[in-house]
């Protein structure tokens, strides 16, 4: 197994070179610095080079400098700041928190966005799933505290460093039907729990989602059509929620809190031998003020929350909230006009997020630290196979008979305000 490599742009920003991740020959192998020719010589992955700039934004060439090399030797996009520090131009999107501050970064390195999607192509499962660029969102926190829910939680705690990356696009029709999303999950705790996992997590059932305000909405076929179902739910607002909570008569205030997505994931790493669960984890990924909600009357079902600020029903119900103030621009004569949904000044840009850390279980006592699974985290074996993804798990069993719940991370870190706009 070779190591993943950091991109040139990352080196340029930090003045230091690094490398790493899910792919070193030893679980904690030291980073290896790549050089420019190495990146240029690497074959591009499907995910590389797919982003296109809007007017006035950084060029694709600048964007593509933020790349890394995956365990398969291909070149992948990776995290970059929303504004390029070398040129000052904006990318118009963000990928969450700068991973270089994570205590896990030296081991994990830059995350190759789309690596697991790429492995699905090679896995021979008859499935193909690639995701857009802007949906990759990183969140991490050092030294979080996990506790049991009972009184013993006053006395015992487990401290962890955690880093996650989920592809969580909240601007397009994709997640209305598609339940497979790339997830990287890295965790190291004081009780020796450790996992470095990358997989396509199946969030709920394909072809449908859960309405934020209750109920299931069936939309249509997923991509791929034979996507497996998984645990968890994708909670997404739709017109029903908007009609009941946002569009209100005079004298009432709109509840824009319903414009909130919660992707409640449950992921597992399983062995091929007996389909045994080697590890599981349940982080919940929440996005406040996404740039979409589902409206079956719209093309592709995509409607824009920003448009609600000027929308009025026949009976006079409309959005009544200060949330719309940034969206409405005053023009002469006291009339208002609305900002386009993708204007950087709109708060509906999906840049406010948080992650709940829950139920990190490892049942790998006596097992190897390194497993190779298919892109869904299944069929875990000791040796790599076509389309396999390397997973690292500590050789312990951390089931204590009680669940350990963690904190919410990232809720106090809005990532907007730097030219970031929908689609983000």
């Amino acid at each position, binding site marked *: 197994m070779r190591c993943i490599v950091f991109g040139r742009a990352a080196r340029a920003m930090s003045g230091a070179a690094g490398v790493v991740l899910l792919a070193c020959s030893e679980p904690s*192998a030291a980073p290896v610095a790549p050089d420019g020719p190495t990146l240029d010589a690497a074959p591009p992955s499907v995910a590389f080079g797919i982003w296109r700039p809007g007017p006035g934004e950084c060029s694709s060439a600048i964007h593509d400098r933020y790349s890394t090399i995956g365990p398969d030797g291909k070149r992948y996009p990776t995290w970059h700041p929303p504004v390029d520090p070398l040129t000052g131009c904006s990318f118009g999107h963000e990928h969450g928190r700068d991973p270089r501050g994570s*205590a896990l970064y030296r081991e994990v390195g830059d995350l190759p966005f789309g690596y697991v999607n790429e492995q699905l192509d090679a896995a021979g499962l008859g499935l193909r799933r690639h995701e857009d660029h802007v949906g990759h969102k990183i969140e991490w926190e050092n030294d979080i505290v996990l506790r049991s829910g009972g009184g*013993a939680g006053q*006395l015992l*705690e487990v401290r962890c460093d955690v880093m996650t990356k989920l592809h969580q696009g909240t601007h397009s029709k994709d997640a209305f039907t598609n339940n497979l999303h790339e997830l990287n999950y890295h965790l190291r705790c*004081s009780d020796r729990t450790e996992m470095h996992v990358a997989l396509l997590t199946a969030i709920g059932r394909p072809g449908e989602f859960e309405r934020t305000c209750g109920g299931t909405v069936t939309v249509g076929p997923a991509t791929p059509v034979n996507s497996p179902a998984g645990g968890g739910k994708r909670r997404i607002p739709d017109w029903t929620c908007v009609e009941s909570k946002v569009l209100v008569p005079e004298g009432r205030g709109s509840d824009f809190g319903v414009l909130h997505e919660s992707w409640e994931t449950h992921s597992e790493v399983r062995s091929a031998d007996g389909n045994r669960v080697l590890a599981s984890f349940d982080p919940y990924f929440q996005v406040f003020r996404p740039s979409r909600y589902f409206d079956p009357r719209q093309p592709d079902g995509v409607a824009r929350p920003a448009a609600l600020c000027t929308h009025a029903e026949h009976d006079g119900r409309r959005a009544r909230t200060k949330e719309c103030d940034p969206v409405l621009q005053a023009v002469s004569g006291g009339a208002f006009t609305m900002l386009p949904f993708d204007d950087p000044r709109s708060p509906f840009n999906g840049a406010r997020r948080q992650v709940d850390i829950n139920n990190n279980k490892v049942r790998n006592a006596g097992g190897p630290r390194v497993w190779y699974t298919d892109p869904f985290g299944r069929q875990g074996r000791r040796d790599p196979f076509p389309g396999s993804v390397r997973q690292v798990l500590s050789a312990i069993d951390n089931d*204590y008979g009680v669940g350990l719940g963690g904190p919410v991370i990232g809720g106090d870190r809005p990532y907007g305000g730097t030219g970031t706009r929908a689609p983000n």
Partner: protein
Amino acid sequence: MRPTTPHAGRSRAFRASPERRGAAGATVLLTLLLTAILTALWPLAATAQPTRDSTSGGLATPAAIRRDASAFARRVGLWASAGLGRGSAGLTCPACQETQTPALTAQFAVGGRVRERFHVGVALWSWLDVVGDGVDRTARGLEVIARHYPSRDSRWFLTGGLGTSRFAIDDGDARFHAAAPALSLGLGWDLPMRGVVLSPMLAITSSTGGPLRSDRTGNAIAEDARLGLWRTTLSITWF
């Protein structure tokens, strides 16, 4: 390979909150007060069990009382003791919170004198703390003990024990325990009284590191949990 011990050094020493410290101080004061009262009553008690003294017409004198104490110490044979008191205990480990609470402690021991100034025996001690929210913390230990009097007439003694300890946390749902070898050291004072001896004692106990395991699954949430315990006990010993 990169070191993977990011939490090294996070073990927490016991540190009681101001309220807890106040309660602990009250415990010590209470024990000292009891000791003082018993000390004051001791001559009366000694009088109630007449001590022959030709120089004082049959009344107990301090010299006579000291002779009685000496007589106790010179006795040879088995003894048994039981005591109650207050103590504070906690675990130090990467998973352990800073919680040290004064709570009830008890000790039972049996043994014998092997020499005039040297006793040996076996002691069973326990400590129970009801934290609240349905959480109990318990500590108990079984030790081989030795007691040494610095001089033939000394009422002060040093004591030590070596054995096993077990610390448990139980909230009805989560149950964890740590068991490990433990060492106790203590200091006490004998007050002979009506055929028994009252002994106020202060002891500290520390265990070697051991895993803190879930009772339900046997899995360790921490590998190096160390018990720390101090206790004040007022014991009655029968010879």
